[in-house]
């Protein structure tokens, strides 16, 4: 008997792209492959020429800490998009997480026992991440088991999460988040204001999360399953990939990333409001798309998403620094997204089966 299994085990040829597998890389091909990186360089160059304040270490770190706020949900969004889904609730989860953290820092009033519970900051942080994971779990279960389309399910949780945050605060914000020595819960603003080796903690968290997710995607079986179920779900399922578990897990991870962003934001502002994070899901999707991921799933990596996030962040902040109207920012962000998707189709277009 011929060794059919050996033949079947050979991985399929990589999809033909306009870049091809040839070794000759003309400048056009190089630019297309590394387009996010070159776009970033062009943006930095243009704005440095237009404003003397742009090109400085302090400014880059400031802009990076702005990027961290939507970069974290963008990494979670990448995982969801790789799976072929979409998560519209990350902005609301960010707001809800911030509000929950604020609520816990104020002291949880347990009327039945007659005590007010003040949790230490690390407990507040972990519980906030649990809240984000719960929202993600609800999303995942709806999408994987109840077969609700991802768009609809996460649209619903967008409204519900936002509504819960508004109900908890009644429209106001939680402001006394610095804690007090006597209660032992100081340190909440450590996330927002502290710098390790002069790098804001938010940026470090973004870096660590990116590294962890990158490792998850490229070196673990979970990553392989994710790419497989995103590329062709039916084939992956037949090959033994636990597609439903992977689906639920990515939404939980997306919820956790959004909750992390909510924590970083509330500690940067030392105040958590229920309207925080409105429309951040769209910025996260934009970052993923600019980074070269395909919205249908199965293609993309963390490096591209990070670059996409930095492109959006540096562009928006640059426009503010040179004093261009905020309305131009939205025009530019939209134009960059369309351009990015256009270049995506250019790069991957030929590979349509």
């Amino acid at each position, binding site marked *: 008997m011929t060794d059919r299994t050996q033949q079947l085990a050979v991985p399929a040829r990589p999809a033909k792209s306009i870049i091809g597998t040839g070794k000759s890389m003309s*400048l*056009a091909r190089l630019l297309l492959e590394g387009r996010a990186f070159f776009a970033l360089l*062009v943006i930095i*160059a*243009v704005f440095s*020429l*237009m*404003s*003397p*304040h*742009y090109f*400085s270490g*302090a*400014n880059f770190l*400031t802009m990076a800490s*702005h990027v961290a*706020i939507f970069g974290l949900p963008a990494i979670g969004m990448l995982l969801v998009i790789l799976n072929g889904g979409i998560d519209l609730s990350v902005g609301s989860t960010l707001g809800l997480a911030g509000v929950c953290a604020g609520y816990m820092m104020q002291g949880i009033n347990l009327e039945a026992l007659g005590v007010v519970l003040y949790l230490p900051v690390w407990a507040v942080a972990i519980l906030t991440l649990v809240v984000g994971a719960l929202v993600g779990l609800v999303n995942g279960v709806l999408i994987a088991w109840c077969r609700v389309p991802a768009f609809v399910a996460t649209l619903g949780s967008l409204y519900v999460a936002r509504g819960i945050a508004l109900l908890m605060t*009644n*429209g*106001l*914000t939680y*402001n006394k988040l610095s804690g007090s020595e006597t209660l032992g819960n100081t340190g909440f603003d450590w996330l927002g204001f502290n710098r390790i080796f002069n790098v804001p903690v938010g940026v470090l968290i973004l870096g660590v999360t990116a590294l962890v997710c990158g490792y998850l995607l490229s070196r673990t079986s979970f990553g392989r399953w994710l790419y497989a179920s995103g590329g062709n779900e039916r084939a992956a399922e037949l090959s033994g990939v636990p597609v439903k578990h992977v689906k639920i897990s990515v939404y939980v991870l997306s919820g956790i990333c959004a909750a992390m962003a909510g924590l970083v*934001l509330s500690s*940067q*502002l*030392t*105040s958590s*409001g229920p*309207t*925080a994070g*409105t429309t951040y899901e769209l910025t996260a999707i934009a970052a993923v798309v600019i980074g070269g991921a395909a919205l249908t799933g199965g293609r993309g990596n963390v490096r591209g998403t990070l670059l996409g996030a930095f492109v959006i962040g540096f562009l928006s*902040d640059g426009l*503010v*620094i*040179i*004093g261009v109207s*905020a309305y131009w920012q939205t025009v530019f962000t939209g134009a960059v997204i369309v351009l990015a998707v256009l270049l995506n189709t250019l790069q991957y277009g030929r590979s349509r089966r």
Partner: protein
Amino acid sequence: MYLNSKRFILAAATAALTSIATPTWANGLMTIIVNDPSNPYWLTEGQVAQKTAEKLGYTAKVSAHKGDTNTESQLIDTAITNKSKAIILDPANADGSVGSVKKAIAAHIPVFIINAELNQSGLAKAQLVSNNAQGAALGAQQWVQQLGEAGDYVELKGPPSDNNAATRANGFETVLSQYPDLKKTGTEVANWDRTQGYNKMQSLLQANPNVKGVISGNDEMALGAIAALKEAGKLKQVTVGGFDGSPDAVDAVKDGTLAYTVMQPVATFAAKAVEQADTFLKTGKTGASSEKQLFDCVLITKDNAAKIKLPFMLSD
């Protein structure tokens, strides 16, 4: 070769841009941060402050946070990066904006608050706000005069995070609670926005078809309510009151659709804030007697509506 020409065009474009880009600062940069310029109130606030700053020899940049504390924080970061000499700020949140103001002060940039209060004193060099309590009392008294002392009414409020919303609501309550036959049958938060005022008014009309009056925390919400009443055909029976004195509201007062509005002296205190900033930068003192300064509001009815020629300025 094609790429070479593309690079050439890029280089030429950036060279051309730099020639029109960085202006020379005379006295320095003043950053003015307002709420949302789509509302004529905040638009005038930003424009007047910018004109005053430029007249005094500064370069002025106006930006908007639209009520979001994160955007406000990022705009303050930009003001610090741009090495502003002073920041004129209309805060997004009386408590939540304290962190951002502290950031600016830590970077040695004096902050001057206008229009909405900050719930911590000693941070900003000056807080210039309208006397919302006086304005609300003025408005409520005029409203009772035009409505009569009996009937059902509804109230439209601003966002709870803005102290002005609470101050005006309390001011209305203080006057209106003295008339036991005036019954408040509904109240909704419309966040200073015209569309939200329209939608909430429609819901309130469904719940209270016999409403006789609407008292609103600002003009935009009142104008939205008027549109809803017009659509329901009930405008003639309902007395609507606004607050701000925006040009659209003054036109509505002249037309008779809006009973009155209370004009906030935003043009006055926006200019004064910039002048006090200038005095502070030159002498180390603002010249004002206290940090919090209140500016009285003016009642605008059909009688004096014609006197408003420029936005928010009563020519007398």
